[in-house]
């Protein structure tokens, strides 16, 4: 009986054992790329809502402060989605015939909730508290990006653990004075590290890296 495989296939077999390592590495690399892509994270993908609310119009255009609507952000873990009544503070008289705002008026008339699709949805195994971040000088735009330039809301950052840790490891790179937290025009100053180190000391900011800080 003649040989099925030619002796040269031995080389092929050796090569494939060696190549399998690279194939596995390539697969892992591809998975890493995919996990960080917008498809998986939703970063930069505008979310369709029942009412196409524009932060750009309300914040950049009208100059409303974040806290006019997100009233809980300084005191609570949850920044808060405003009740329809807050919309109606102005829209009782402005754009009253706009069909785009009919769901808002209907919600106000009937008491039924507007159903917003959550854009920043942290995994349930993560504890997060807005108020402490605000109190320690983490600006809105540090995590949420230039919301004042977003006609529809999207996520600016992945909210992945590696992203949280960027700041938890080196808060001095990101913190700003408390009275600038809600300033959407804040730009990282050239002396950020110097300012940051000073603020870290002044605000008693700890590098909280224990697992149970967030996974409690």
């Amino acid at each position: 009986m003649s040989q099925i495989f030619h002796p040269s296939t031995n080389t092929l077999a050796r090569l494939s054992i060696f190549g399998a390592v690279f194939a596995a590495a390539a697969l892992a690399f591809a998975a890493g790329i995919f996990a960080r892509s917008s498809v998986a994270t939703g970063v930069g993908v505008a979310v369709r809502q029942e009412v196409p609310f524009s932060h750009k119009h309300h914040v950049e255009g009208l100059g409303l402060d974040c806290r006019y609507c997100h009233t809980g952000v300084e005191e609570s873990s949850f920044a808060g989605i405003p009740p329809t009544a807050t919309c109606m503070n102005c829209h009782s008289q402005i754009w009253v015939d706009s069909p785009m705002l009919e769901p808002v008026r209907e919600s106000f008339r009937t008491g039924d909730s507007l159903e917003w699709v959550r854009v920043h949805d942290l995994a349930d195994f993560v504890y997060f508290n807005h108020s402490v971040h605000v109190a320690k000088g983490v600006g809105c735009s540090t995590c949420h990006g230039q919301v004042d330039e977003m006609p529809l809301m999207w996520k600016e950052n992945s909210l992945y653990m590696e992203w949280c840790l960027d700041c938890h490891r080196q808060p001095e790179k990101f913190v700003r004075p408390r009275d600038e937290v809600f300033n959407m025009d804040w730009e990282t100053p050239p002396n950020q590290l110097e300012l940051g180190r000073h603020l870290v000391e002044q605000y008693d900011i700890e590098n909280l890296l224990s697992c149970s800080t967030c996974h409690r």
Partner: protein
Amino acid sequence: MGIRFAAGAALVLALSGCYAQEMANQDRYEPLEASGLFEDGMASRQPIEGTVARGQLFEDDHLYRGTVAGQPATEFPFEITAEIMARGQERYQIFCTPCHDQLGTGAGIVVQRGFRRPSSLHVDRLRAAPPGYFFDVMTNGFGAMSSYASQVPAEDRWAIAAYIRALQLSQNANEADLAPEDLELLGAQR
């Protein structure tokens, strides 16, 4: 072989995705989340009528309703310090400037876009009004203005009332009322 391998890899990726989702969305509600359990579709339940949560027994008429013996309070329920004044300024700028503008003349951006123009805070009627009056307007609304009680806690409403007093003073101050250093500052700016 190639196709089978690719399919296997896709399956692994998809499964790991599902698993991550299951951990990420556990069987509990987040604030304001929708729920199929209740008729109104809300996971957050309204407290039974008449329920008083700890720390929310608002029985101090002066602090929480701005009245003393049924009349609008003529005094603030706590001492107005520089700190409270700064808080009032900040809260005024967040919640009031959209209509009343920075100065209180009633030409804010929302008014410019068509909202009914509120009275200037510098008219005689409002200069003579007691602090409790402003507190009442913020709490219960007035004319086209809705209640701000749910957006601004009572202490902050008083701080805003104090800041309104300061704004009013700023538009009606006499030179004689100013301290020498303020006059000097003013002279330098002229």
